[in-house]
């Protein structure tokens, strides 16, 4: 149940049987492919999800950085992000387990929409818990979930955001474990979630590792992925971990540096989400991991311009791999991420999710004309770089434009005439 000292199952007793049942199902269906589960999962990922996603050489970025930059195009997956890999896996697993109902929590709505899609596809009733405030901020995603037939349950306690939604979903699951599966959206939570979600997402790296050898004729010098909870990160990295252990490939987890890597103890706020880069070990949402907390151990409010990275914890496996030296945590701030968003949109014709824009921004920070290389990262990026483009940015249009207008972003187009 652990990765070194990280992970575990720090949950209320009432959930333990469900977690044990899930662990058993995970071992049988996922690890041992009982009843052909993994075959069906992979087939549905292909036909419904659109796998394999391409590994595309980014010609103009490659020229800019004098390196071969390849984009793993998870933005092309059904729903617009890597999230479906996991949601489809878990909903299918719930079906194999004989569960009759799906619950999930969502913050910005990306995991909720992926889960609602998967549940509709597999004809499973589905309830998505979402903070009242998030519902008001993320209306298009609420519409998408409703259109896919999911119930969206407003959570009104507290501030009405992700963490209240997580608590409420846990609570709901606790009262209905017998017929209900809780689809956790990242490689977080109690075992077996971190391992299982990673296994569902690992298809990203499996494909990419084969594709890069086809296209570049060798392993990449580096793999770059943004990291919030870390599911796209571990999905991209997992297959490359042995290469990292061998010293062939450097794995960069790019965290949201927000407005600076510190914690305001008085306000209980960290203006960033860089748990790997700056967090301390602790226990959150069922797992021991690195997290953002004050001296007392209270979890602080994290921040990122990208709502999908805005989380105070991170997957325990990433904490472990960082400690072991196999994953290198780095961060870029909000401004750099927005610039990355605009750069990729303009030079490659791909509008990235603000999450993924952090990975794009890291290349600029290290290799760009005005880059400020950090430590050995520049060298370690090497000549062949795989960047996991975890999602598309359609969901971020309004907020990216709004955030851009607050700042002085070199690469940004003028929206004045079109923005009322």
């Amino acid at each position, binding site marked *: 149940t652990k990765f070194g000292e990280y992970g575990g*199952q720090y949950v209320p007793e*009432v959930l333990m049987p469900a977690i044990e049942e899930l662990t058993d199902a995970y071992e049988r269906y996922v690890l041992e492919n009982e009843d052909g589960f993994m075959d069906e999962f992979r087939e549905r990922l292909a036909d419904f999800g659109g796998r394999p996603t391409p590994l595309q050489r980014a010609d103009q970025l490659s020229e800019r950085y004098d390196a071969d930059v390849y984009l793993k195009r998870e933005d092309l997956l059904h729903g617009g992000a890597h999230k479906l890999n996991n949601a489809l896996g878990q909903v299918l697993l719930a079906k194999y387990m004989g569960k009759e109902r799906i619950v999930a929590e969502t913050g910005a709505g990306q995991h909720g929409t992926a889960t609602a899609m998967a549940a509709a596809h597999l004809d499973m009733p589905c309830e998505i818990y979402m903070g009242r405030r998030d519902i008001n901020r993320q209306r298009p995603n609420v519409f998408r979930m409703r259109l896919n037939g999911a119930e969206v349950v407003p959570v009104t*306690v507290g501030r009405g955001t992700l963490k209240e939604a997580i608590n409420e979903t846990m609570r709901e699951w606790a009262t209905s474990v017998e017929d209900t599966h809780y689809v956790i959206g990242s490689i977080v939570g109690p075992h077996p979630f971190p391992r299982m979600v990673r296994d569902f997402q690992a298809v990203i790296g499996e494909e990419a590792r084969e594709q890069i050898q086809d296209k570049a004729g060798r392993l990449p010098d580096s793999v770059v992925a943004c990291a919030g909870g870390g599911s796209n990160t571990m999905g991209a990295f997992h297959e490359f971990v042995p290469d990292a252990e061998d010293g062939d490939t450097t794995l960069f987890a790019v965290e949201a540096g927000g407005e600076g890597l510190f914690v305001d103890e008085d306000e209980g706020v960290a203006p960033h989400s860089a748990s790997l880069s700056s967090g301390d070990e*602790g226990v959150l949402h069922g797992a021991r991991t690195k997290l953002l907390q004050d001296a007392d*151990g209270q979890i602080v409010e994290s921040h990122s311009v990208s709502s999908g990275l805005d989380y105070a914890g991170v997957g325990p496996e990433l904490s472990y791999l960082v400690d072991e030296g196999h994953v290198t945590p780095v961060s870029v701030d909000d401004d750099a991420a927005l610039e990355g968003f605009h750069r990729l949109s303009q030079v490659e014709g791909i509008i990235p999710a603000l999450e993924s824009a952090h990975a794009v921004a890291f290349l600029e920070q290290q290799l760009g004309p005005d880059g400020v290389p950090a430590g050995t990262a520049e060298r370690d990026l090497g000549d062949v770089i795989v960047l996991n483009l975890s999602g598309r940015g359609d969901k971020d249009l309004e907020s990216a434009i709004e955030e851009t207008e607050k700042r002085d972003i070199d690469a940004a187009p003028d929206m004045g005439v079109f923005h009322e």
Partner: protein
Amino acid sequence: MSDIEKAIAGDEPSLVPYVTAGDPEPEATAEYVEALAAGGADVIELGMPFSEPIADGPTIQNAIQRALAAGTTPERFFEIVETLDVDVPLVCMTYYNLLYQYGDRKEGSDYERLRPFVRRAAEAGISGLIIPDLPVDESDPLREACDEFGVDLIFVVAPTTTDERLEAMRERVSGFVYVQARLGTTGAQADVSDATHESLARLAEWSVPKAVGFGVSEREHAEEIVATGADGVVAGSVFVDIVAEGDADEGTVAERLEAKAAELKAGALDGADERSGKVTDGAR
């Protein structure tokens, strides 16, 4: 036999009320605790507020948020406990991360990191701990620290707990076992499940006393629980609701806490009578 065990396993059925320390502000807690004791509480559970209370329902989540907003840090919690003038044992209910981070030492074995919290708790006058997100499989370091400082470690048993896990708890529990009467997290509800009877039956051979909770808000709930065979009744949300409502025409918070405690205690007593064969006013 620890103080807690004695308090719960005594001749009378016992009442274990809960309030969140520092709700709505640290200064209020002493009066509330004294009121609960005056109403007949045998053991009092004090919640130490944690920012991510995954085992608590909305009522207690909101109480925790009020307490945090009012500055109830772990250290402030202990200071509150030190000021209390009650002679019932006190149990601290909180989450693992606060124990783990307590004190200046930010590395070392779990045992080494948990020790400062347990020592401070013992010094301040805490007799037992309930850590709902600490599973029994991970509890040995805390168990060791609790033993060292003479603090009970109370486990929660759920209707769904497996026999194997029950056995692990039985080996490690002290003070009392907290029997969750139904699935779910904390929160006042009108019904008390039949599962209580079944759960108690599974614990019949255990040496520690059993207190049943989750959903107790009325005299009848307490009566039914005790009649079913419990040694004690745990009630939380019903008291937290009173705190949340504040002083009202029907009485101050303290007055109403005391009255509610007395009501539940009376129910428990009725249940005991019922169990021993007497018919009481409250029996149906």
